[in-house]
């Protein structure tokens, strides 16, 4: 039997909008993945710590405050510091399409701006992880 994909859905920063994070978490669970949701207001360091403990295959950040560039950068650093720099990170939320390339250049594997169908997210994970 194939091992289930383990995904950490995380809300970094102070923003409390978690509608998107929860919809994605519920949809990934429906698709048979194991989903760990961090809850709100996590620091990148704390998220990296959970990712390490839970041995996840992917970290999904949900950011709606507009701080996606600096949070992405900090997240990549934090995973490197924790010694799991190989775990891919994807970002979803309020990311303007014109910012997508800049976010990817920071080392983010994929960006799912709000409005991305959840099945596309499920599909991307199944294909790439």
């Amino acid at each position: 039997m194939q091992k289930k994909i383990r995904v950490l859905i995380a809300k970094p920063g102070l923003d409390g909008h978690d509608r998107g994070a929860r919809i994605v978490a519920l949809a990934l669970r429906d698709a048979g993945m194991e989903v760990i949701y961090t809850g709100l207001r996590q620091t990148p360091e704390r998220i990296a710590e959970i990712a390490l403990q839970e041995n996840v295959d992917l970290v999904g950040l949900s950011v709606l405050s507009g701080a996606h560039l600096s949070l992405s950068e900090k997240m990549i650093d934090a995973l490197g510091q924790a010694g799991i720099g190989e775990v891919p990170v994807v970002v979803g939320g309020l990311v303007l399409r014109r910012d997508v390339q800049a976010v990817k250049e920071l080392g983010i594997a994929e960006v799912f701006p709000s409005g991305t169908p959840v099945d596309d997210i499920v599909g991307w994970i199944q294909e790439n992880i």
Partner: protein
Amino acid sequence: MSERDKAIKKIEEARENWLKDRKVGELTPGTRFEGEPLEILFTPVETKDIDYLSDIGFPGEFPFTRGPYPGMYRKRPWLMNQYSGFGSAEDTNERWKMLLSHGQWSVNLAFDLPSHLGLDSDNPIAEDEVGRLGVAIDSLADFEALFDGINLGMVPASFNTVGIAPIVLAMLIATGEKQGVEPSQIMGVTTNDILSVYVARGTWILPSDPSLRLITDMIEYCSGNMPRFFPINIQPVYFREIGATLSQEVGYGIAMAISYIERALERGLTIDEFAPRLSMHIGASYRFLEEAAKFRAARKVWAKVMRNRFGATSRASMALRITGATGGSGFTREEPEMNMVRGTFGAVACILGGVQGLLVAGYDEAYAIPTEKTARLGLRTQQIIFEESGVTETVDPLGGSWFIEATTKRLEEEIWDHIKDIDSVGGAVEAIENGYLRRQMDVNLIRWHRETECGERVMVGVNKYCSEEGEVADFEIHQLDPQAVKRQLQRLKRVKGDRNPAQVKKALGDLRDAALSGENTMPYFIEAVKAYATVGEMMDVFREEYGEWVEPAV
């Protein structure tokens, strides 16, 4: 059989024939907001059990279905309350003055996230968020700049604030004192609804017990000293973002109100002393007919809860004051100008529903907080509805419509079911702490999201009639001004350097003593604010004593 019953029976028979003969019964029925099918046509049959005097009544009379006040908008317009705040206090003061000069007569403040969470702007974890989603408030000095040239005795001030609400109230009182305005003259509202924030908004600080205690302190303080101030505006509107049906929104809102009321009664206040200062903030999507009925149903249930459950006798306790809002997840990022049209329908819903205040979100809400232009358009939308649309020419123009009255009744019944449901699991606080409330809405959230994705729930420009380029690439959105952040940090540094450290230390010590002794904390917050203690310092007193709220697991 009475004459009336006979007449209804005749209509019923005629309707059956019409459905059959004209083949109307074969058509696909429309749906309710939630997705369930609706009757193709409403007639007196659907409203036959409704008694005008006891179920609908007159505006300003029990059960307040047609409005909390007799004259409604014939007497005065609703409060047009565009939410604004960004950068530093000076930026926000300037935006407020623009809105006031365009005919808004109140101000409504949005705080940045660090302020919501009781963190000072110089706290390292606040770094990326200072002034981003609202204005940064660290000390009384910020309030002085914020209200420069705006008289607190003349302009009602609304504050979207929860965790730091007692500090905001204390700052308002201290600012009023500098302007020569007595607390009894200050008009305004703090949202201050921690329970809905635990469920849906995430800007909590303390656990439920100390949070509810601080809210009760404010209710008690305002009952004695600030008759024109509303210390809590219950916010079930957030639940619409996480899957609430129309009746869940209102039912859970009232269930939360019950928890606040119970605490205030335990404190020794009588219901009629504080209930006239409770209000509720309810959302409206562009499904404006059902939404309008919802506001009517909300007032009806509230009136009965206040009278029958709490023994209220004053009309002001039983008449629910509602502020409405339109925007949120109903506003799309695709072709954002369409949201002006959606916002107009939502606003009309609120006005037909008889609200006392209204916020129309900027059409750019899916992107950022409003620019000057989009904030002004929200206000203009309201002014057109008031001055040009004709919906305010007569009170409750929808009253008596078979569809509206039948929907009001159905929603009322559903609202009662939700209140009973929450009672049966031990009340709103319990239902929130064990995650029950959120789970009740998660089911709809994912279902509606799927329905929207597959096109069953139509959204123009999103899943039907889509254009090539949905997101507008060159459209101007609000940008964070790094200079404003710098100004804020400089002011905080200056405040900390100029104040009297011994006075700050004493005030914070007194605040801690009051917190632990159970005394009303409001006078001590006021002293600490006047000593220029910072928001972070005051909240740290409580964080140290009580810890922070822990989110229930999903």
